[in-house]
């Protein structure tokens, strides 16, 4: 087999930042898939970009040096911009991490996908044909229609596929795919991975950058673990993932949600009851979508309920309904046995502290001008509790120094903790969390989930956890509700559902959430 990639001693530095890659060695053959894993900031994306000579994109110009740099069979050590241009798109395809913004929203998908051909002067007719073929190969239905659309008219999964199509349209020997599945929901991600598998089987070498070890396990032949810009471990995938030698690898593997919680000791009194909720939304182009269709749910004290489902299945709508941020078209929600959803806002206000929502995007939920301390003090005042901000920080394991900082100055994990602390200020009966970890790095995600479990055990607050990731739900919840197209299609104790899924969606979600080890 031919060597597609041969890199030795690749070092990349940025002025003012320092070295972000330090002597990286990589080697891969055609028809193989090499996965690069590592924590956020390890240098994975820089590595991916370096392979097409675009290391310095989007910032200061990079200083790149290497002992050996052979890409797609060509020695590009010290290559000038012209050489690189000849290589890019033709011999190497790159799929950028920000899939949703990587297609020019002003141009048609066809023009975007065909660009690497257009650059090389391929005629219009041939280009069109090859674009359609690439779109089909990337697993998009109706390639003709898609080619005429613009990226804004495509869903996230479609965009990701179109982007991959644009990288493979010239049939490059090497495809570098940076996090091709992060933006996608589980079932869609599954499809994209399968497609990449087919490409590899057809002979394309794939360099897969990912922090999702589940995805890696399913696709990669070999794995390289990056940490702080250095390769800390490398080897065949099954070896590295089952018998990790380096602590970074182990930490990564540990962070993957695994295992489940024991069922709650005694389900306490009922705190929240939703009966027969309906909600329809009007769509911009006319018509309407049923976001909730006869959904009922009971939440008891001390219990934690997971709500899972594909994107758009109505999970967030349900969450908003529960905290009375929105009114149902039909059906009602009761809070601690008393009316809730049908009350006017004025009468709800005194009992608002009983339910709390932790929103998906914590940063947006903080007034940018308020410090963490002020956020907490306001929450305490609003709920009339007698906790102190310091206590709350302690509860979510944030250092007291956080009090004076603004939300922007906090990391993603810290922000999520602050959002939880704010919700806890009121000693709520129910805490509703909408995708609390989807935006976080695996290791941070693990810590937050742990915190949630611990909190619930300490305070007995009922949790409603909305997620598209069954593994996340399994780690925190005892009971799970599976939704599809606004309806509850399956519910029951997490372990039962996990072992014996009934609904089709549940099965799909489970495959996607399968842990890396066989």
């Amino acid at each position, binding site marked *: 087999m031919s060597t597609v990639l041969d890199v030795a001693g690749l070092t990349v530095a940025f002025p003012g930042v320092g070295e972000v890659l330090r002597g990286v060695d990589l080697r891969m053959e055609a028809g193989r898939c090499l996965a690069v894993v590592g924590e956020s900031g390890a240098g994975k994306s820089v590595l991916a*970009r370096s392979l*097409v000579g*675009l290391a310095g*994109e*989007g*910032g200061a110009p990079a200083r790149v040096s290497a002992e050996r740099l052979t890409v797609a069979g060509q020695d590009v050590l010290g290559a000038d911009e012209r050489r690189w*241009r*000849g*290589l*890019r*798109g*033709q011999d*190497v*395809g*790159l799929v*950028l*991490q*920000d899939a949703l*913004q*990587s*297609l*020019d*929203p*002003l*141009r048609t998908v066809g023009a*975007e996908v065909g*660009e*690497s051909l257009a*650059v*090389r002067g391929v005629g219009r007719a041939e280009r069109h044909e090859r674009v359609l073929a690439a779109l089909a190969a990337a697993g998009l239905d109706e390639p003709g229609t898609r080619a005429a659309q*613009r990226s*804004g008219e495509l869903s996230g999964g479609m965009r990701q596929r179109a*982007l991959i199509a*644009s*990288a493979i349209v010239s049939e490059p020997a090497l495809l570098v795919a940076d996090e091709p599945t992060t933006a996608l929901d589980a079932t869609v991600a599954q499809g994209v991975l399968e497609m990449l598998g087919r490409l590899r089987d057809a002979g394309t070498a794939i360099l897969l950058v990912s922090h999702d070890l589940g995805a890696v396990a399913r696709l990669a032949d070999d794995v390289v673990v990056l940490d702080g810009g250095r390769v800390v471990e490398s080897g065949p995938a099954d070896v590295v993932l089952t018998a990790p030698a380096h602590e970074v690898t182990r930490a990564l593997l540990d962070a993957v949600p695994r295992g489940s919680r024991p069922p709650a000791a005694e389900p306490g009194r009922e705190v929240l009851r939703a009966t027969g909720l309906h909600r329809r939304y009007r769509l*911009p*182009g006319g018509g309407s979508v049923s976001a909730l269709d006869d959904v009922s749910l009971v939440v008891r004290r001390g219990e934690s309920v997971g709500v899972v489902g594909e994107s758009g299945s109505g999970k967030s709508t349900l969450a908003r309904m529960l905290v009375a941020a929105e009114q149902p078209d039909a059906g009602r929600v009761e809070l601690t046995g008393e009316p809730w959803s049908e009350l006017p806002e004025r009468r709800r206000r005194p009992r608002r502290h009983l339910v709390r929502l932790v929103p998906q995007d914590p940063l947006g939920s903080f007034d940018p001008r308020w410090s963490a301390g002020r956020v907490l003090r306001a929450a305490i005042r609003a709920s009339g509790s007698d906790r102190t901000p310091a206590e709350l920080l302690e509860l979510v394991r944030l250092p007291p120094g956080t009090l004076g900082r603004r939300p922007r100055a906090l990391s993603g994990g810290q922000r999520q903790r602050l959002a939880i602390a704010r919700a806890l200020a009121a000693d709520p009966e129910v805490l509703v969390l909408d995708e609390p970890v989807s935006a976080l790095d695996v290791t941070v995600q693990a810590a937050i989930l742990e915190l949630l479990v611990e909190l619930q055990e300490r305070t007995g607050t009922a949790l409603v956890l909305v997620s598209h990731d069954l593994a996340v739900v399994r780690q925190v919840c005892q009971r799970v509700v599976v939704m599809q197209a606004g309806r509850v299609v399956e519910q029951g104790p997490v372990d039962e559902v996990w072992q014996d899924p009934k609904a089709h969606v549940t099965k799909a979600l489970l495959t996607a959430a399968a842990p890396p080890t066989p």
Partner: protein
Amino acid sequence: MTVLRWLLGRLAAAALVAWVVATVVFFALRSAGGDPSEAILGGPGSQASPEAVAQVRAEYSLDEPLLVQYLLQLARTVTFQLGDSYARRRPVSELIGDQLTGTLVLAALGLLLAWVIALAVATTAVLARGRVGRRAVGLLRGAEVVASVMPHFWLGAVLIAVFAGGLGWLPATSSDSSLRSLLLPALTLAVPVAGFLGQVMRDGLEEAHTAPFATTSRARGASEGRVLWRHSLRHAALPAIALSGWAFGSLLSGAVVVETLFGRPGLGRLLIDATHSRDVPVVIGVVLVIALGYVVVMSVADVLERVVDPRLRGRVEAVRSAPQGQVVS
């Protein structure tokens, strides 16, 4: 359907504009010193006989109560009957018709020049490489800011003194629509606007040029030039197009000064003269035309934005605003 609604909305805006203009101008000029009958009878300071004044007052309903006069004026304006000029005794529509093209040509050339300058500035800034290049971009930014606060009358005076009085390359006055005679006034108008457009375009270009889609394009083997022309520029042009509506207003304001300075015929000069002589019909007419022109230009900008950005096509009204803080037009 949406197109029809959009059109109706524009028409409603035009009618509203007419009403506001008529009201504002009428009361402004009527409460200003001086009497319209003077304007009619040969300008202020004329020594017309009492009979003549009385006759004119009756003829122009100036002896009616103010409210009646206002309603009469309103009825005329909203139906776009501009009437006759007091001072020049010609139909206002004719007067404006004579002056309109000159001003439009001037404003259009000004806008064009502003775009050319702004484009040049923005692309240079984005393509600049190396230490010297960066330095130059820093200077360019400073120049943009300075240009954007340059008073027209001063800039124009300097241009005249240098290029006409001093070097004698271009005429100091501008009377026709030949490029030679338009160049200096158009440049005077263009520079401040170019300063703003340049800032906006450079910001947009810098953002678009580092956006993931630009990187992706490079990863496909596209050259810098291709990335610029096929991708980044279109994005950068969007806010600039939206701004051009505002810029038009600014150019017309500027035209008042520039036309006087260069001795160029046009609406701006007509407006000043008419205001000075309290020639209410002319002032209403000119202001109305300017305001409606603004509505038209805004609509054109709307359409253009939709041409460039298909994402906007579904929306009824595009988001547009003056450049940050550029609230005067």
